[in-house]
């Protein structure tokens, strides 16, 4: 059959979510952010909650989320997304609220807000993109930067003696009683994206059922920050990031499922 005969509306099996706005993403070519942002829209569309959801986009590569979605979004100060989310959720408990934070926002400047929102078991979804670097500001060291990894503020590689160790924060958050679901995913293969989508769906359902805080971490590439092509960045990520930040569930339905003595 000719291609032009296949490309017909009735044969359409995949396209981006209708909740994506017209505005083009400002992410670098091949950046994992784009996939996560789109997958969230797919979950929200499929759950039919677009009229009851508020996204929070704090400072970082994700800050322009309000331009990309066709539902309500509030931009937040750097590090304060979880507090803004709490402020919204407490006056509107039956609306869906999610934050979309980078590693600097969640695990550096916003550690306090993140830790305490989780400790209060705020019924929100926290989407946490861990690419081991500050992307928006041009590639500086982040709390999750790996030992020896080069960034503009550790150009000779992160020296843990003077710059601290890579912070694997989600296992810490998983141990807080208010947290019901903690899982770590990636978007470098279609299979992983599908798993991420299930996890995001689970997270939003947890919120609907008021089970406490759900955290979906996505280990992702940063092509411009790492100075690699998208494909090479993904390969480097699998080789290095996954060692320190292994994929998989850490807490499901309030029960820890991770091996606490596994090497971190």
């Amino acid at each position, binding site marked *: 059959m000719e291609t032009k005969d296949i490309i017909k509306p009735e044969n359409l099996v995949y396209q981006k979510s209708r909740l994506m706005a017209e505005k083009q993403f400002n992410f670098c070519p091949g950046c994992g952010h784009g996939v996560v942002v789109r997958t969230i829209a797919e979950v929200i569309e499929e759950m039919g909650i677009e009229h009851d959801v508020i996204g929070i986009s704090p400072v970082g590569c994700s800050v322009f989320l309000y331009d990309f979605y066709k539902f*309500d979004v509030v931009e937040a*100060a750097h590090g*304060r997304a979880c*507090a803004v989310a*709490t402020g919204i959720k407490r*006056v509107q408990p039956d609306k869906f609220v999610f934050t979309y934070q980078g590693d600097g926002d969640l695990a550096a400047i916003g550690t306090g*807000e993140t830790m305490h929102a989780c400790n209060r078991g705020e019924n929100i979804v926290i989407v946490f993109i861990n690419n081991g670097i500050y992307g928006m500001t041009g590639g500086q060291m982040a709390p999750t930067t790996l030992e020896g990894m080069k960034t503009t503020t550790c150009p000779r590689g992160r020296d843990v003696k003077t710059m601290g160790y890579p912070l694997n924060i989600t296992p810490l958050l998983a141990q807080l009683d208010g947290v019901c679901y903690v899982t770590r995913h990636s978007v470098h293969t279609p299979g992983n994206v599908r798993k991420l989508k299930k996890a995001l769906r689970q997270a939003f359902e947890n919120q609907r059922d008021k089970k406490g805080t759900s955290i979906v971490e996505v280990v992702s590439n940063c092509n411009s920050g790492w100075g690699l092509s998208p494909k090479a960045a993904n390969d480097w990520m699998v080789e290095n990031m996954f060692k320190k930040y292994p994929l998989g569930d850490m807490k499901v339905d309030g029960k820890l499922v991770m091996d606490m003595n596994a090497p971190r």
Partner: protein
Amino acid sequence: MEEREMRLMKGNEAIAEAAIRAGADAFYGYPITPQTEVMEYLMETDATARTGMAVLQAESEVSAINMVYGGASTGHRVMTSSSSPGISLMSEGISFIAGAELPCLLINVSRGGPGLGTIQPSQADYFQTVKGGGHGDYKLLTLAPSSVQELADFISLGFDLAFKYRNPTMILADGALGQMMEKIYLPEPRPRMTEYPDWATNGTPEGKERRFITSLNLLPQEHELVNIRLQKKYREMEKNEVRYEMIQCDDAEYVIVAFGIIARIAQKSIELARAKGHKIGLFRPITLYPFPYGQIRELSDNSRIKGFMSVELSAGQMIEDIRLAVEGRKPVGFFGRLGGMVPTPEEIENALYDYFNIK
């Protein structure tokens, strides 16, 4: 006034009770002396059970003000209260709230500074409050109560002005007002809101254009337009919202300018001076922004008036605005106590005599 319930109340508790009666939807706070009783009262009286409002102790003032930002973005009546160091921590959040044009109510029960300072009253946060404590060109409509009654009455007024201008309202009180007890007539309760403004991000209903809240702009051309819109708003405030009180200025030769707790003490100083035949009056700014420049200028044009004295719990901050209003027409003296010290009526009286060498 009489049929309203009368109670002997501490300032901080009057704030809390008035907040419940003003139909507040949420209070996000953090403990700091001398205002912690606000949140304690809200918890003790179980405000959530009374009106369903949210009351939450955050992990820091930085978190609390960002909770306020979140709540405000949904068009609800949201507030916080703190004291000087806490307000400093909130300054980034306050600038964001002003930049995103969100209504909310802030209360500063000021204490002696700088640094950790003291827990006694102070007015040294004047500049921080009216000249902008955070970054960028923004203004806080600032109400300065000088009694527990005004503390209570300014809560719903503060919320209404915040929503009228989509801007934070600041109530600049101090440790004395917060801690002292006075007889007050409680405000009439009003219900919490059920309708919210169109701009509010509380989930866009079917068929409506979705909303978003931000204070970010990549294009300076766009952000200048935002700033111009803010400035127009502030001009409106300056035109419509100036509040002040003049006591015994009709025959006064010297006028004390003072707000808050000092305006109470100064009235005793005036009484003592008048008993000795000296005609002193009091001009009390109630809004510190917009400042009553025009009214003070008018007074300074009056030939009977020989001079002004700014009396503050600071090293002299409001005096600059008084001098801007008077523009050299008459001398403007200053007397202040620092670090949380509070002057006696006699100290103010004598300071006036010294400055204007009245025998």
